[in-house]
């Protein structure tokens, strides 16, 4: 079915729903690279007008990637909750935007609605929204998850402590962990990206992280971000795996490029839940996503990168994850060219994830070949804090010396907590106070040279 919009004496036609979505998407380099972007600024707005008139129900009948050939589409359609969808069933995409911004869409209403929304509905309304809309609506959403701590409560901001080291040296990793903990970081997860996916190296890191956590009774969870098959093997060998990590995308082919399928994720999810290592809750999966991954794997099927990204969240929510992280600026300028595009994409992903019911965090980041700098990161960081972002990264000095990109620092997390009066997860905040690391509110106090944590590497 085609879609139309007439502006003055000019008539715009869009051949199908995925073309309409792509042309309505705010400008970004990845859609240009894919040949999907609007050809003029006016065509983009024409597409947005036409998209505003599309009934939400259309997304349940017109699939953008065929049901027969893509298991992510099948997941989206088969798991759709019609009863939850009922309150917005009669709306168009444009009406849906108005409704989301209205007082009718309260926190409770949005929580109940989440299973009734599909990624395409959410991606569509996102394309009609300004940054302030994305911030305001996301801030109304509440997603709370638990493992050893409680993530996502109102007025809280958690951090993933990311202590990467170029040779996976356990002492090098531990030095960054100690630094981060003394800066009040690490309540979402202490998560290491390993240099190699070598099983014994991964197990060595898992054991080091678990020993350190146990020794200081830290109410957090640890993770080595190896491929899911490596993590499953580590579980079989009895390694202490808290969270099972995997990078995922929004199409079956994209997931295949990551070496995963829904069947594999099902198996890993089952193995992770059976361990029952989380005393407070059973959320034990950690996913990472990012706009552009489907295109970079030539697996986008003509769908724009923001919509592909939202479809990845349908995969994520099947497994009730503890954390989902959009690694927004890592992929490079051929997908998100500059600070402006990275900032918008980060807020889009957070909005879409939250609306779909996910504990959404954001790796506020950039590479040296993107047209971006620390000022852009400060802007996204501040806006994400205002939007109620669940967690951000904590990297020593914002400089990841293994992955060679810039993320947010331990200091950045303290900035956001200080500015917006946000606190760490409650269990972690209590621990920080008990350990003489932070005062009331979770902000740091001067640490003594004989602090117990400093004994770890002494």
């Amino acid at each position, binding site marked *: 079915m085609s879609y139309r919009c007439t502006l003055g004496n000019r008539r715009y036609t869009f051949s199908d729903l995925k073309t309409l979505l792509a042309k309505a998407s705010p400008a970004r380099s990845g859609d240009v*690279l894919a040949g999907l972007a609007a050809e003029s600024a006016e065509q983009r707005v024409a597409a947005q007008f036409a998209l505003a008139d599309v009934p939400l129900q259309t997304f349940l009948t017109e699939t953008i990637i065929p049901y027969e050939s893509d298991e992510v589409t099948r997941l989206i359609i088969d798991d759709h909750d019609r009863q939850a969808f009922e309150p917005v069933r009669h709306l168009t995409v444009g009406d849906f935007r108005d409704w989301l911004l209205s007082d009718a869409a309260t926190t409770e209403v949005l929580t109940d609605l989440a299973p009734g929304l599909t990624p395409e509905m959410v991606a569509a309304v996102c394309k009609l929204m300004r940054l302030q809309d994305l911030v305001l609506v996301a801030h109304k959403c509440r997603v709370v998850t638990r493992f050893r701590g409680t993530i996502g409560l109102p007025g809280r901001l958690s951090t993933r402590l990311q202590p990467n080291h170029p040779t996976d040296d356990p*002492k*090098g990793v531990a030095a960054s962990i100690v630094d981060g903990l003394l800066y009040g970081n690490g309540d979402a997860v202490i998560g290491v990206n390993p240099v190699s996916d070598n099983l014994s190296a991964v197990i060595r890191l898992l054991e080091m992280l678990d020993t350190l956590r146990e020794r200081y009774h830290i109410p957090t969870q640890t993770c080595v971000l190896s491929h899911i098959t490596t993590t499953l093997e580590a579980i079989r060998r009895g390694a202490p795996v808290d969270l099972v990590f995997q990078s995922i995308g929004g199409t079956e082919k994209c997931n295949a490029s990551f070496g995963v399928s829904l069947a594999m994720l099902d198996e890993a999810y089952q193995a992770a839940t059976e361990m029952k290592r989380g005393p407070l809750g059973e959320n034990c999966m950690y996913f990472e996503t990012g706009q552009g991954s489907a295109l970079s794997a030539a697996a986008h099927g003509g769908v724009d990168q923001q919509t592909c990204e939202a479809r990845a969240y349908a995969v994520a929510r099947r497994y009730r994850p503890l954390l989902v992280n959009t690694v927004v600026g890592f992929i490079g300028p051929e997908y998100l060219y500059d600070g402006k595009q990275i900032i918008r994409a980060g807020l889009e992903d957070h909005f879409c994830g939250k609306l779909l019911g996910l504990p959404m965090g954001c790796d506020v980041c950039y590479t040296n070949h993107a047209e971006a700098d620390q000022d852009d990161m400060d802007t996204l960081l501040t806006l994400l804090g205002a939007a109620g972002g669940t967690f951000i990264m904590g990297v020593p000095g914002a400089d990841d010396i293994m992955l060679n990109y810039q993320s947010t*620092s331990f200091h950045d997390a*303290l*900035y956001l907590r*200080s500015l917006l009066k946000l606190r760490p997860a409650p269990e972690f905040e209590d621990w920080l106070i008990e350990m003489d690391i932070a005062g009331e509110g979770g902000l*740091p106090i001067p*640490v003594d040279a004989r602090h117990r944590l400093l004994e770890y590497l002494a």
Partner: protein
Amino acid sequence: MDKHDLRVRDPWEDLKRYTDARIAMGRCGVSLPTRHHLDFQLAHARARDAVHHSLDGDEVQLAFESLGMTVIRLRSAAESRATYLQRPDLGRKLLAEDARTLSAMVENLQPAPAEGHRFDLVLVVADGLCAQAVEASATELIRELLPMANEAGWRLAPLALVEQGRVAIGDEIGGTLGAEVVAVLIGERPGLSSPDSLGIYLTYAPCPGLTDERRNCISNVRPAGLLPALAAEKLFYLVAEARRRKLSGVELKDELPQLQENLILPG
């Protein structure tokens, strides 16, 4: 303590011996002290300058010619840095005009043998994401490689010096020249602590359309990393092995565990 010093110091500076990560920096309130803030800005400024620095092609050409190489100058289809950064597809192919020039040049060469290749190796040098890396290390690397190549009796093609090139442009060049192996020396994405890193990507039987699993890589070639002389030895060994086994990529890599595999492929 100096009463003007408002910093809260971190009494764990000795942990820096375990990692190059930016730890124990202290804080002013919750924020980064000026000195550390400016150190970061400097590292980023250098990395940015490295990305946008254009290759001094004339000087590099002279340096290669002084080693006895014949040099062909080529341009990719990405005509500006901004285009290069946003359109990796254009950086992977030659500008049409330069592709024609290269083909015309090949027609004047002796024909390739019926079975086999016209050249054993073509060296392609491209600015990639960091022209400074080419200027810092490419000449020395080639100076070290040439005696080994000559002793082994390799037939070397003219050296292709490419502006705004990505790795895969070597496939088109190697294919047109009829080379058995192409080695692309290319500037890697600059990191905050390594703004001048050269990567080497080797492909057996190059032709357009090959993908990354067909390549072998030597990365982090720079004065403070893998030294160019050492990289030349590794490259010589890899080219020899690729020619002996008539392949490159994953299967060749398995036999070379000493090579670094922490790669950042510039396209």
